[in-house]
């Protein structure tokens, strides 16, 4: 009998990539993030937590969600305003961002120079059985970010885009948004601590002493 992991991988294999989408999330993320210690990082609850965790390990400068879908961008805003000298990186997914897409408007109005958002867009709800998300059906989240008023936006869909995206999330002249379009494959395996209270204390201890 197949394990749950094998069943998920089979469903992922059946999910269709959007035309022209060639990046693998597990390969793209290390290039995009680079020196992860340069950031305070907030991630979403599903694949985005794995993408980042596979690069950083389970560490104090990363706060990953296990629920509260739609929260990462606004956690990033509160953190960016509290820590104006640190560069804040939010890594979230298309489904998570769609759930609270108004946060892009809120962030654009404040426009903190030290906040970058990466949306890992695989066009699917991978956690729940690989149903297509809106971004497989015509919704363009970079255009929505731009329409919300975020002045610095880009889409990374090819290997050649990743170096520019890596610079983009480190530039400090206004909130930035990167739509990272990836194939609908399983995120890298990563075992993390799901005790949110422990993770909060660890994050604050690492940052504030």
């Amino acid at each position, binding site marked *: 009998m197949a394990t749950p992991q094998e069943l998920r991988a089979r469903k992922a294999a059946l999910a269709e990539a959007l035309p022209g989408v060639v990046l693998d999330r597990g390969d793209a993320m290390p290039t995009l993030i680079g020196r992860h210690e340069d950031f*305070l990082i*907030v991630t979403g609850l599903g694949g985005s937590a794995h993408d980042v965790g596979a690069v950083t390990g389970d560490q104090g400068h990363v*706060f990953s*969600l*296990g*629920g*509260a*879908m*739609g*929260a*990462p*961008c*606004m*956690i*990033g*805003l*509160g*953190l*960016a*305003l*509290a*820590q104006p000298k*640190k560069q804040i990186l939010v890594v979230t997914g298309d489904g998570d961002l769609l759930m*609270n897409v*108004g*946060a892009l*408007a*809120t962030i654009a*109005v*404040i426009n903190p120079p030290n906040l970058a958002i990466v949306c890992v867009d695989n066009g699917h709800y991978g956690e729940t059985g690989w149903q297509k998300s809106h971004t497989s059906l015509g919704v363009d989240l970079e255009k929505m970010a731009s329409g919300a008023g975020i002045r610095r936006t880009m889409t990374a869909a090819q290997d050649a885009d990743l170096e520019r995206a890596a610079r983009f999330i480190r530039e400090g002249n206004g909130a930035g948004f990167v739509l990272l379009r990836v194939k609908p494959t399983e995120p890298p395996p990563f075992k993390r601590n799901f005790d*949110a*209270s422990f*993770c*909060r204390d660890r*994050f*604050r201890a690492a*940052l*504030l002493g």
Partner: protein
Amino acid sequence: MDAKVDSKGASQASWQHDLYDLLRRHDITQFGYVPDAGHAVLIDRSLADPDVYSIALTTEEEGVALAAGADLGGARAVLLMQSSGVGNCINMLSLIKGARFPFLTLVSMRGDFGEGNPWQFAMGQAVTPVLEAMGVIVLRAEHPDEVIEVVGAAITMAFKSGQSVAVLLTQRLIGAKPF
């Protein structure tokens, strides 16, 4: 506008200014809100204050996540919302409960004492049970002379004891809308 509303308006302005000063004395520097007449003075004061961030939200749940982010960075936030907004926050409050973030919200009530719009009752009457179901301690301020004491207690509970606390600014306090 009748005389009763006028006199209420005058005393309201006074306690609202005292309330802003109280929040600032306790180092609250992030004011998240969905615009609301009941919080107008706090919102306007935060907009005019160069030492705070005044953050207009598109939906109240953004303010819950904002408060968590502020705490991760060592800052303090407050969420100002109307009772209807409490309903928009329910699942996001699992972030506060699960990670034991300190959380302070001031809720201007509708659908309660003297309400004249029947649409407001469903959420207004659900505010306390919904918040309590999500682990938020609910305090009430009914009169102008108790606002500072009640919110002061809530600030201590939230930021010294790490609790999640809502203060309901009731319609006896802010005046019931006849529409």
